[in-house]
């Protein structure tokens, strides 16, 4: 799945992936139980809840990629491991940690 890796370093993020495409968080919406825990823990306004028709809970957490700094706090808040890392492909050359 395009480099998605589970946090924290289990297994460690492969260096080329981390160096070339610093990871940002993504929600596996099928896993999300809409518990509302992650938005308040995200310090960078990168997480909010959205309505989803057909989702068992009617809502899901969503990551705003442009705001995500890949810090890792949301992984801690999630009780069902609904977060994965994906490469950051957003055009933010000034983003901390990103050397594209």
């Amino acid at each position, binding site marked *: 799945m395009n480099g998605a890796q589970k946090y924290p*370093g289990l297994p*460690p993020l492969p260096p080329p992936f981390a160096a070339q495409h610093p990871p940002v968080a993504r929600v596996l919406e099928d896993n999300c139980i809409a518990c509302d825990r992650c938005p308040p823990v995200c310090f960078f306004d990168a997480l909010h809840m959205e309505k989803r028709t057909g989702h068992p809970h009617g809502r899901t957490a969503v990551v705003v990629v442009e705001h995500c700094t890949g810090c890792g706090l949301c992984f*801690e808040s999630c009780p069902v491991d609904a977060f994965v890392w994906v490469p950051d492909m957003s055009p933010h050359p000034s983003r901390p940690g990103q050397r594209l």
Partner: protein
Amino acid sequence: MLTTSFLGLELRSPVIVGSGPASHDVNQIGLAERHGAGAVVLKTACSDKFEHMRFWPRPRYKLLDWDKQIAGRSKQFSLYSYEQGYSGSLDDYWEFIRACKRNAGIPIIGSIFADDAADWAAMAAEVEAAGADALELDFSSPHRPGSLQFDTTFVAAMRAVLDQVKIPVLAKLSPGSLTESQAEEAEHLGVHGVTLCNRLQGIDVDIESQQPILHGYYAGIGGPWAKYYTMRHVAEAYLKLHIPISGTGGAINGEDVLKYILVGASTVQILSAILINGWETIARINADVTAYLQGKGIERLEMIRGRAVASMTSLESIVRWSGEPLDGARNVWKEKDP
């Protein structure tokens, strides 16, 4: 009631946002002000020689031992992190300070890190020129190169900076056996205040992969438990110093802030509490401290500063004998004489 005089600045609250991810962005200064912070210490800018410290690995945070309460209710956690310095260039940082000053009504304290005394002085001059109200010298980041020694590099840095600028200068020190002597040295050199203490480095290991977690190296580690160590450093420094102390480390609520004041801190810097429990933490602390002072009929915070230290006993006068026999068998149950 919470008004605090610190480094010649009048702060409306003793609660200061510590240098870190909550002071890396102009918008955050507005949030800090709106929630009642007395001042903000900006994220630390590193000299060009340490340009690599402007890049942060991802992920950079792991919350250990978290009680998983949200909405401001967490009381236990350890924030394990490898966040580095201010992520922009030095020119960006000077502009960042100017933007903060344009947009904020609370004092802005710059924060810098370098190695050569000339770099320290040049950066301090720029911080002053950009309009910062004070300057914190970060001698103690858990991520600094271990080769830099206090007695050489940082003493020279203090001399150079104090020669260079007129704004008040704070020295931020590490916790450890040398904290008090370094604080005394800083005061001797003419520093206007000390920040006690920065976080320490730690390491955590994932036993499944048998690897260090996160980026694979030591990380900064702190949390509410850390306050007991730093409060002791504040207490010891308060007994020895004549300059104000900004206490920091593990304070997450009004009780913690009061404890820091009672052991001698003039101000208390908080950070991880904001990160984990939200910006409302500042307003909640202000309200709780105010309620405490009102309940006790105390008019000004400075009236209780250092009171717990003043009540401390000396090592020699700790009562060690509580009535048991000084010789013979001890802890033996004896029927009392009828």
